């Protein structure tokens, strides 16, 4: 299944090794440009950068624990209309899954893309990253991977801690450190026909996938699953009634950052930005009189519940909603949990099978017969 190669790392410098590999990909006739996470010039942030010249690959960093945004939305911008160019994109597994959802929503296209991913060690929240950067030297890539694999206590974002998908099954090329002596060698899996076509151009040695890889992956995933179970148990208790849900979102100021950060919040214009929610001044007074008072801004729960209805079926659990919240509301804990429930109801898994239709985009005469009835 697929072609397996090894990528040798010199001087334990994983990022330079990856950079060399990406340079070779960019040099291929088939690739015109490449979207990669790259350190900003000041070095304090890692942002998606579209690169057409190999020298710009300097500073590429897909492993450091910073994940400021889900780049699926950026890939959507690059592919929603045909450009005639081939673009390689280096994404985290959850970014690829979000992209698959956007493709199903006709807001992106895979045909012009080469999907590259790296085993994902998770990331810190933006705030945690900023405060750590300010006070200490950040671990380099190899150290960070080592810390993650050894289960060391790190301030990993809750969404990443509870993420059981560290490997992108749908990537054309997957770069792996699980099960490898990653200071010396990374695994490169050419997983699809598109990936395999490039395998021979890359001067890499053939290698067997070490048995240790699946063992280490399974252990890692099982830890993530327990973290997820714990997270769901906590959030379930905190959101099991409208009153509790109000408390959960009490710090919400209706900034809608979670909606902006969400890669799969797909509406071109959000209903909460339309006249529907531009209430008459008089209306507020009517509401206040009916209940004795009304909290302003209002429609807070209405907003979050609407978002759950709209995007929970496509939620990939990337955690960017929580990351974007200025008041530290654990938005993604709830959305991930509800997303699992709604996706299970339709036997659907967001971001996996590009051919599986979105649950609300198809319907049949004889289905879900138990839904109707008194």
């Amino acid at each position: 299944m697929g072609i397996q190669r090894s990528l040798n790392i010199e001087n334990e410098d994983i990022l330079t090794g990856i950079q060399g590999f990406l340079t070779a990909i960019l040099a291929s006739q088939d690739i015109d440009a490449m979207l990669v996470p790259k350190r900003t010039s000041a070095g304090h942030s890692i942002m998606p950068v579209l690169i057409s010249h190999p020298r710009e690959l300097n500073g590429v960093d897909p492993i450091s624990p910073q994940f400021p945004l889900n780049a699926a939305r950026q890939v959507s911008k690059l592919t929603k209309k045909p450009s005639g160019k081939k673009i390689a994109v280096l994404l985290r597994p959850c970014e690829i899954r979000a992209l698959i959802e956007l493709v199903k929503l006709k807001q992106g296209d895979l045909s012009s893309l080469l999907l590259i991913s790296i085993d994902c060690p998770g990331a810190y929240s933006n705030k945690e990253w900023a405060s750590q950067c300010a006070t200490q030297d950040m671990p380099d890539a190899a150290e960070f991977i080592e810390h993650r694999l050894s289960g060391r206590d790190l301030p990993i974002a809750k969404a990443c801690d509870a993420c059981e998908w560290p490997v992108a099954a749908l990537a054309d090329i997957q770069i792996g450190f699980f099960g490898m002596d990653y200071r010396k060698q990374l695994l490169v899996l050419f997983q699809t026909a598109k990936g395999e076509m490039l395998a021979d151009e890359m001067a890499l040695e053939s290698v067997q996938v070490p048995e240790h890889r699946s063992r280490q992956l399974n252990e890692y995933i099982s830890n993530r699953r327990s973290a997820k179970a714990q997270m769901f148990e906590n959030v379930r208790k905190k959101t099991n009634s409208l009153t509790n849900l109000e408390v959960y979102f009490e710090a919400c100021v209706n900034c809608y950052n979670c909606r902006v950060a969400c890669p799969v919040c797909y509406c071109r214009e959000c209903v909460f930005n339309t006249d529907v929610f531009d209430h008459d001044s008089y209306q507020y007074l009517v509401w206040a009189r009916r209940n004795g008072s009304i909290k302003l801004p209002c429609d807070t729960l209405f907003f979050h519940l609407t978002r759950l209805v709209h995007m929970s079926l496509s939620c990939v659990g990337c955690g960017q909603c929580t990351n974007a919240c200025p008041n530290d509301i654990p938005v993604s804990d709830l959305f991930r949990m509800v997303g699992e429930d709604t996706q299970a109801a339709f036997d659907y898994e967001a971001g996996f099978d590009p051919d599986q239709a979105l649950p609300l985009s198809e319907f049949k005469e004889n289905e879900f017969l138990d839904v109707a009835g008194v």
Partner: protein
Amino acid sequence: MAEFNPIIIAFVCNWCTYTAADLAGTSRIGYPENVRLIRVMCTGMVDPQYIIKAFLEGADMVLVSGCHPGDCHYINGNYKARRRIKLLHAILPTIGIERDRLKLTWIGASDGIQFARTMQELVVQAKGMGPGSGRPEIMT
């Protein structure tokens, strides 16, 4: 203590369930006044937002009712409604709104008696469940 009088918001389609309600009326078959009908052209246009809003505003039960499968005036609006209700059934219980508070029924245009019976049955059930959690303290 006064008897609990549930509020049931019913989104009914123009072609089937609303017509059935009309038939119940013209046939002088009574049904409980707890039910507030909102006529829509098709159950397929009932945005889940309408249902959420009804619950947040204090509805004790929400009913969506339209044409039987195969009978939709717009061919497939009721199938879309069914998937949306299915989706809401997966979300609402998590936040404390029991599955039984959101109902979907098919009541055809000629089912006036069936309409009245269904409304009576829903009121009995809503009374059994007690007030919904979104019910505001109404100031008078």
